[in-house]
C-alpha cells in the first residue's frame, strides 16, 4: 500500500508526459509547456517567500535575464556567419556589441541561463540583506530594481532591440526549427523533466538543516541571529538559487513562446508570479507548480472568452487567497479542508480519538457485534 502510494504520482507523471503530447493539439501542448516552465520560477518564489518569508516582487528580472540569454544565442544561431541580427540594421549598428560575442557559444549560453541571474540575485540580495533591509522594504526595493531593469532593457534599442524584444522562432537547433511542432514537443518533455528536477532540488534544500534555517529566518530572524547564525549568508544563497531557477524558467518560457521582450520584466507580471504561489500554497512545493499551471490555464481560457473579466477575477483571487485561504489550495487540502466542509454539511468523518478507540478494529468489530449503540455518533 505504502509503496503504491510513493510510485503512483511518478507513474501518473510519466503517463502524462507520454499521453498528453499525443492527445493535445500542438497549440494547447505548447501552452501547457509554457505554464509548466513558469512552475519553475514559482518554485523559486516558494523557496524565498514560502520558506524564508522574503516577498520578492522582482523575480521578473532573473526570469527575463535567462530568457534574453537564450534569445541572444538563438538570434546568433539563426544567422549565416559574419552577419548581424536584422534589427541592428534598423538602428545603424555596424558591429556586434562586445557582450553579444560570447553568446555564439552554446556552452556559455547554457551556463549563462542560470549563472547570470544567480549572480545578479546574489549581488542584489547581498547588498539588501547586509543592511538588514527586510519585510516590505525588501519587496519595494526589488520592485524598484525590476523597474530599473525594465526601463534599461526597454530603452536600449541599439543593444538588445528595446521594446520589440528578440524573436527565437526562426533559429534551428540540430537542424529543426525552434518554432516547429516536433521541437516544441521535445521542449515540453525537457520542461517536464526540469520541473521535476527543480522540485527535487527544492525538496532537498528544504528538508535538511539548511531548510530549517530558512524556516527559522521566516519565523524569527533576530532569534536566529542571536543564536549565532548569520542570516545574511542564508538569505543571499537562497535568493541566488531562486534567481537561477527563475533564469531557467525564463529560458524555457522564451523558447516555447517564441519571443523574449522587456514585458517579461513588467511590474504586474512579477506580482502575478507571487499569486501563483499564494493560490497553490506557500511552503508546499507542489503547490507552487500547481498554482502556476492552474492560474495560467484559467487565465488563457478566460482571456479567450471574456478578456475584460480577467482582471476582476485576478484581483478577486488576490483578495480571496489572502483573506480566506492563507495557505493556498494545497495547504487547505493538507490541513483537512475537505473534511471540514464535509463536517459542515452534516457527515462528520470519524476522527481518531486518543487512544484511538473509534478506529480500533477490535472496537469496531465489537460494535458491529453489539449492533448500533443508542446515542452514538451519527
Amino acid at each position, binding site marked *: 500500500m505504502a509503496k503504491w502510494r510513493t510510485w503512483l504520482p511518478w507513474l501518473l507523471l510519466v503517463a502524462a508526459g507520454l499521453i498528453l503530447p499525443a492527445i493535445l493539439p500542438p497549440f494547447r501542448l505548447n501552452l501547457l509547456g509554457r505554464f509548466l516552465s513558469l512552475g519553475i520560477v514559482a518554485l523559486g518564489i516558494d523557496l524565498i517567500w514560502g520558506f524564508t518569508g522574503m516577498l520578492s516582487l522582482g523575480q521578473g528580472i532573473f526570469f527575463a535575464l535567462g530568457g534574453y540569454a537564450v534569445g541572444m544565442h538563438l538570434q546568433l544561431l539563426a544567422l549565416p556567419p559574419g552577419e548581424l541580427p536584422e534589427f541592428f540594421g534598423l538602428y545603424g549598428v555596424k558591429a556586434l556589441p562586445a557582450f553579444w560575442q560570447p553568446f555564439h557559444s552554446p556552452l556559455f549560453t547554457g551556463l549563462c541561463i542560470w549563472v547570470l541571474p544567480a549572480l545578479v540575485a546574489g549581488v542584489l540580495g547581498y547588498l539588501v540583506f547586509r543592511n538588514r533591509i527586510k519585510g516590505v522594504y525588501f*519587496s519595494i526595493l526589488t520592485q524598484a530594481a525590476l523597474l530599473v531593469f525594465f526601463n534599461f532593457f526597454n530603452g536600449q534599442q541599439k543593444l538588445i532591440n528595446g521594446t520589440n524584444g528578440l524573436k527565437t522562432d526562426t533559429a534551428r537547433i540540430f537542424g529543426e526549427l525552434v518554432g516547429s511542432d516536433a521541437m516544441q514537443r521535445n521542449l515540453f518533455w525537457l520542461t517536464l523533466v526540469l520541473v521535476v528536477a527543480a522540485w527535487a532540488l527544492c525538496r532537498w534544500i528544504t528538508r535538511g538543516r539548511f531548510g530549517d534555517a530558512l524556516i527559522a529566518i521566516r519565523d524569527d530572524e533576530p532569534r536566529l541571529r542571536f543564536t549565532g547564525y548569520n542570516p545574511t549568508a542564508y538569505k543571499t544563497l537562497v535568493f541566488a538559487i531562486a534567481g537561477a531557477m527563475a533564469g531557467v524558467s525564463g529560458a524555457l518560457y522564451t523558447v516555447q513562446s517564441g519571443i523574449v521582450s522587456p514585458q517579461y520584466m513588467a511590474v504586474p507580471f512579477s506580482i502575478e508570479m507571487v499569486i501563483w504561489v499564494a493560490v497553490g500554497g506557500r511552503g508546499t512545493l507542489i503547490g507552487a507548480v500547481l498554482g502556476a499551471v492552474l492560474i495560467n490555464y484559467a487565465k488563457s481560457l478566460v482571456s479567450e472568452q471574456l478578456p475584460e473579466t480577467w482582471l476582476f477575477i485576478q484581483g478577486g483571487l488576490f483578495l480571496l487567497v489572502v483573506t480566506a485561504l492563507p495557505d493556498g489550495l494545497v495547504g487547505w487540502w493538507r490541513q483537512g479542508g475537505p473534511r471540514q466542509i464535509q463536517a*459542515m454539511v*452534516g457527515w462528520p468523518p470519524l476522527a481518531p480519538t486518543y487512544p484511538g478507540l473509534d478506529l480500533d478494529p477490535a472496537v469496531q468489530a465489537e460494535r458491529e457485534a453489539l449492533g448500533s449503540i443508542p446515542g452514538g455518533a451519527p
Partner: protein
Amino acid sequence: MDLLYDTLFNGLAIGSVLVLAALGLAVVFGLMGVINMAHGELMMLGAYTTFVVQNLFKNGPLQGIFPLYILVAIPLAFLVSGLAGLLLEKTVIRRLYGRPLETLLATWGVSLILQQFVRSVSSAFVIGLLVAVALGLVAPRLLPRPWGQRRWAPVLGVATWVIAGLVGIALASGLGGVRVLDQPWFSARNIDVTAPVWLRGSVDLGAVNMPTARLFIIALTALALVAVHWFLQKSVWGIRIRAVTQNRSMSDCLGIPTETVDALTFLVGSGLAGVAGVAVTLLGSVGPNLGGNYIVDCFMVVVLGGVGKLLGTVVAALGIGVLSYVIGSGSLLLVWPAMPAGLNELITFFATTSMAKVLVFALVVVFLQFRPAGLFPQKGRMVEA
C-alpha cells in the same frame, strides 16, 4: 545662473507632483505601517472625479463658472478617493493588520479591480453591482434565524454571496442589451481634462518661464503639506493618530478609539491621493493605468525619506525630482561643455526620462546602503527597527 534657476524650478515642478502623490502614502505607510498598492488607483479615481466634475460644469447651469471647476474638483476628489479608501480599510485591510506582505498583495488585487472597473463601468454594470451587494447584505436577515446557528452556517454565508453575485452578473448582462445602459462611462481610452483658461498660460518669473499649471500644483502641494502638518500636529484627531502610532495598546487603554483612528488615517491618506489625482490631470491625459506610473516612484520617495517623517518625504521627493531633471535633460553638458569624452558619452547615455529613472533608482538603492532607514530615520532601540 539662469540654468540654475531653470533646473531648480523644473526639478521643483517634477518633485512637487511626487510630494503630493507620496504624501498620502507617507501618511498611511508611516503612521499605520500599511502598504497600499492601490494608492495609484486612488489617484486615478481622483483624476476621473476631476473629469466628471469638468463635464458637469461644461454644460448646463454651471457653465458660467466653468473656470472654477477645478476648485470644486479638489474637495470632491478628496471625498471620493477618501471614501473608496475607507471602504477598502473597513472591508479588507482591517483583517490584515500586522501582516504587511499580505496587505501588499490584497491591495494589489484591489488595484487590478479598480483599473478594470473604470474601464468597463457602465450603468448596467453599476446596477448589477448594487443589486448584488444589496442582496448579499440583506439575504442573511431574511433567512430563518436558527439557520445561522447550524453547523453549515459558513457554507450558507458563502452560498448567499455566490448567488447574489450570480444574480448581479445576470442582471448586468441582461441590462447590457439596452444600448443606453451598456454605454461605458469612460471606456478604456485615456481621458483629457481641459484646464481652465487661467491655468493655461505661463508666468514669467524673471529667469524662467513657468507654466501656470505647474505653479498651481506647487501651490496645491504647499497647501496640502501645511494642512497635513496642522492636522497631525495640532488637531485633536491628529494627536490621537500620533499616539496610536507610538503605542497602540497604551492608547487603547487610555480610551482612544484605535479602530476609528485607523479608519480616519486611511481616509486622509486616500483622500490626499485623490487630490494628487486632480493635480495629475493638469499635466496631460490620464487613463486607467495612471496608478502604475506613480506607485513605484511614490514608494521610493517614502523609503528614501524615512518612514513616519513628512519632512523626509518632502526632501526625498524634491531631491528625486531635481536629480531626475538634471540627469534626464543632460543639463550637466551645458554647464561643463568641455568635459572629457567618456563622461560626456555617459551623460548622454542617461539623458532620457526613462534612463534618468534607471540612474536615480540605482542611486537610491546605493544610498540605502549607507542609510538603510532613509534620510530621516526614526530613532529607536528595537531590534526590528
